[in-house]
């Protein structure tokens, strides 16, 4: 689904990613670990072009999204992202946070279809009766888009047990609640893959569990996930592949049993001996 070919990223003269090749299939749960400053977060942020790659390709559903000419916003709709610091929209209530993108994107598409239709109508005036083009079918309306997004958001909130918090602002939530809302905000777009950038690093220890539990649920349902994390236990339990990145390169890529049980790369051995 995502095919990363020789991905490179430099900040000025500082090359952070030195050519990364990796294939991510549908249903993969890939954990990325590595020391800080190794480029693992940059790697993740390059996948949805949050940082523009300076070299290489990222083929996502058949399109090279590292190409500047591609409208990245369309592809990002299919790639959720969860941040270390949650980044919930502070000026929106919890339910608005979840609804915002689906509603705006739905309205945008609706507007586009309407514009297309009026253009077709205009050009049809000049066409002979046989050549007339058909209008684009519009099956939905503003109210319907909003209603649907709201129902979907409520269902997601029910799922994480925060339905009673729908109308409060994020500033009143605990860290764990914020991160769970952030995860369902990403889910609301029905993404093909979700990128997690150290989702539990900013949480109090007692709140880590609730977030990891939700992520485990998603994993069970077959969501494709790429997770930068320091939670070795989680990686071992949930991932089907673990990557070790250091100095901008993938040094080891293996299933968790092999990765933790029988590491080959000396740098990884040293790293594991420190953190485990």
């Amino acid at each position, binding site marked *: 689904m995502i095919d990363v070919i020789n991905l490179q990223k430099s900040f000025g003269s500082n090359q952070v990613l030195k050519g990364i090749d990796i294939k991510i299939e549908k249903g993969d749960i890939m954990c990325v670990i590595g020391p800080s400053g190794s480029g693992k977060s940059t790697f993740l942020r390059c996948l949805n072009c*949050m940082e523009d790659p300076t070299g290489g390709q990222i083929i996502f559903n058949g399109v090279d999204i590292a190409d500047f000419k591609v409208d990245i916003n369309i592809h990002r709709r299919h790639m959720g992202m969860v941040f270390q*610091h949650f*980044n919930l929209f502070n000026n929106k209530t919890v339910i608005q946070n979840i609804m915002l*993108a689906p509603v705006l994107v739905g309205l945008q598409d609706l507007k586009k279809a309407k514009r297309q239709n009026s253009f077709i109508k205009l050009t049809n005036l000049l066409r002979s009766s046989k050549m007339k083009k058909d209008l684009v079918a519009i099956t939905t309306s503003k109210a319907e888009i909003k209603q649907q997004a709201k129902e979907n958001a409520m269902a997601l909130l029910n799922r994480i047990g925060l339905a009673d918090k729908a109308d409060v602002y994020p*500033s009143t939530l605990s860290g764990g609640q914020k991160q769970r809302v952030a995860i369902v905000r990403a889910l609301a777009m029905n993404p093909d893959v979700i990128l997690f950038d150290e989702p539990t690093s900013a949480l109090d220890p007692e709140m880590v569990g609730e977030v990891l539990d939700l992520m485990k649920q998603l994993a069970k349902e077959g969501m494709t996930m790429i997770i930068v994390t320091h939670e070795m236990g989680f990686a071992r339990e949930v991932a089907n592949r673990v990557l070790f990145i250091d100095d901008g390169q993938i040094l080891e890529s293996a299933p968790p049993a092999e990765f933790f049980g029988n590491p080959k790369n000396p740098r990884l051995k040293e790293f594991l001996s420190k953190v485990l």
Partner: protein
Amino acid sequence: MGDFSKKVDAFLDAFINQNGYAKVLEGLQNTLLIAVLGLVIGILIGTVIAIVRVLPKYKVLPRVLNGICSFYVGLFRGTPIVVQLLVFYYVMLPLLGLRISSVNVAIIVFGLNSGAYISEIMRSGILSVDHGQMEAGRAVGLSYWTTMLKIVIPQAVKNILPTLGNEFIALIKETSVVSFVGATDLYIAFNMIGSNSYEFMVPYLVMALIYIVLVLLISLGIKIMERSLRKSDRRH
């Protein structure tokens, strides 16, 4: 105090019997019109400039726009507003062959001028919003502009509201220079009353009171607005 009550009588006579109140109302209306519309124009211009100035700058177009905006801000902050009014009214209009009433000229000039100041206020407001907000918006597939308008700007405005109120109050007070181009404001109105009654003490005192009341009312309005915008905060 007999002297003072005589002065008050003279003022009241000029204010009520010689149509002074009409002039004052006209002046008050102009003052408010210039300040409010100037602020609205200023906020629009300021927001656009602020957004341009925080655009990522590795493409050519943002750089060019940024240069133009810097020039604009430099120009309008670098000259006194009286000079801008005079230049606009007595130099630009004749050169362009336009006829615009002095009040409208004042609205335009005050808008352009406060746009320069508000752009800097707004820019600091935008920079005060955590970059993660923009990233989160972009990550769910919203465009830069949509995220800016729906997420970042509302939070920026909340942060700068006290400063923006300051700007509005300054604007109200600065409008007293529009008489330079012949527009009737509070000063002109009370000056006329003074001339009619040959007595300036009470008219200018009342003028000062009106300004103070205006500013107090505005401060109150800002406070109420702030409170409603702070809903999403835990500070109350």
